[in-house]
């Protein structure tokens, strides 16, 4: 059943891409929505996670699951270090979003430079050994178990993230700090702790996105910028700071990509979701899920 095959593969692709987009955009939006940092380096962080996974799984020969946990775990101390060295210096700067943007461009530049003279020299394409062997059929559509596992993990992560922000008071505290920092601290919110936590959490989610992406797809160094841009686009449409928006729009992007590229062409798909973005903004400049 060829049409059924195309249909199911479209749905699967939409979901898979949507989950990756959502994760990265959620990480970006958490960081923007708390410390006001538009992290242009998010794509580089994403790539860093994917490359680190490659090193751990391919060069060191660790089991892929161990390597994945290691990489995601390592994002925590790395983020803390970065927070300590650079990020916290700007917490009290007026208009710090601009300072942060410059900062993140600097970081982007450094990471891109490092990748280019290391990984860029080692290979032009990176592929991680499968998480697990075998293939599962979704109707007529075969999916490698490895990708399926990445998808399930991604969905679980998003659900956990959603629950954390929705049902834990930390979620409300992030928003409170974003909207009125002094008032939040008077109400008992430890502003700096929230900042730190958000930065770490956001990066962790981005790193998880990178790791899952690497399991699902082969990649090269060029994914970083396109991911940065896509994540920004999703954040703007979804309403900056809104994780629900990031997930909803991330899914829409994923499905648009899949559907339009199936029924028109991949190029039209890229134009179409970016064009849709402009249209939505024309109608609702604050984003769909602005808070």
């Amino acid at each position, binding site marked *: 059943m060829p049409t059924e095959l195309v249909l199911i593969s479209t749905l699967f692709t939409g979901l898979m891409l949507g989950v990756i987009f959502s994760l990265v955009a959620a990480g970006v939006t958490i960081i923007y929505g708390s410390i006001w940092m538009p992290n242009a380096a998010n794509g580089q962080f994403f790539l860093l996670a994917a490359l680190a996974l490659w090193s751990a799984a391919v060069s060191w020969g660790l089991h892929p699951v161990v390597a994945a946990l290691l990489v995601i775990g390592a994002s925590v101390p790395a983020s803390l270090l970065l927070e300590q060295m650079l990020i916290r210096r700007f917490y009290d700067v007026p208009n710090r979003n601009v300072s942060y943007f410059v900062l993140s461009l600097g970081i982007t530049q450094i990471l891109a430079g490092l990748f280019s003279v290391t990984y860029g020299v080692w290979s032009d394409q990176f592929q991680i050994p499968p998480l697990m062997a075998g293939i599962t059929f979704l109707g007529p559509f075969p999916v490698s178990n490895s990708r399926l596992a990445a998808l399930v993990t991604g969905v679980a992560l998003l659900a956990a993230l959603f629950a954390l922000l929705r049902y834990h008071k930390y979620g*409300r*505290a992030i928003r409170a700090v974003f909207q*009125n920092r*002094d008032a939040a601290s*008077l109400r*008992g*919110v430890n502003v700096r702790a929230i900042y730190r936590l958000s930065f770490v959490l956001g990066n962790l989610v981005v790193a998880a996105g990178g790791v899952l992406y690497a399991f699902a797809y082969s990649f090269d160094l060029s994914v970083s910028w396109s991911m940065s841009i896509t994540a920004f686009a999703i954040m703007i449409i979804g309403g900056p700071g809104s994780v629900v928006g990031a997930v909803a729009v991330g899914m829409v992007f994923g499905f648009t990509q899949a559907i339009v590229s199936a029924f028109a062409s991949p190029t039209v798909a890229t134009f179409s979701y970016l064009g849709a973005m402009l249209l939505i903004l024309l109608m609702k400049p604050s984003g769909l899920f602005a*808070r």
Partner: protein
Amino acid sequence: MLEISGLTIRYGAFLAVGSLDIVIGKGDIVGLIGPNGAGKTSTVKALGGLIKPAAGRIAFRGRDLAGVPAHERITLGLSIVPEGRGIFARMSVEENLLMGAYAFDGADKAARMRRVYDLFPILAERRWQAAGTMSGGQQQMLAVSMGLMAEPEMIVLDEPSLGLAPIVIEEIGKALIRLREAGVTVFLVEQNATLTADVSDRIYVMSNGTVLHHGTAEEITRNEDMLGALL
């Protein structure tokens, strides 16, 4: 309950508060009045830990607040309603109230919320409205309510009457008196001398960063000069 001694606040070279002494006993309503720029808000900010005083000591229930960060003060029982409302504009009224009880995990938030809804029924009616789209006065009510959600030992209100209709100001006055009856200490920072005089046990009059006068409400209102200057 609260003891401020020798409090000095500087903004760069500018001396906003110079060696201020205020003592507030448990269960009192104490007023602090004074013209614009007297240093009232600066004092409140220092109480809240939002600015660091250049000198002086603030003791709350006998404990020096010097090393206590802003966010821990509310758990000590000190709830501050800042000037300029201090609400979360893009959260709903209800979420704002929940933020008011943020530091109190075990508390019965629904019950607390019912109590503030009794005080300001319009808030119950508008519980889903984004706080920032409420009218100026409604926002002020919300701000006071957030302060009350902490059910504190002591509440500090910085110009709660700003922008409120006369009848609401009256309501707030009554509410403050009820709070005192419930054992809450109230520090009322105001420019509205009438409200302050109506409810306060004692009043500090502040100008140019220092206390000019200090006495019971009657003493202050009896002082003709002062009345002239304030009312």
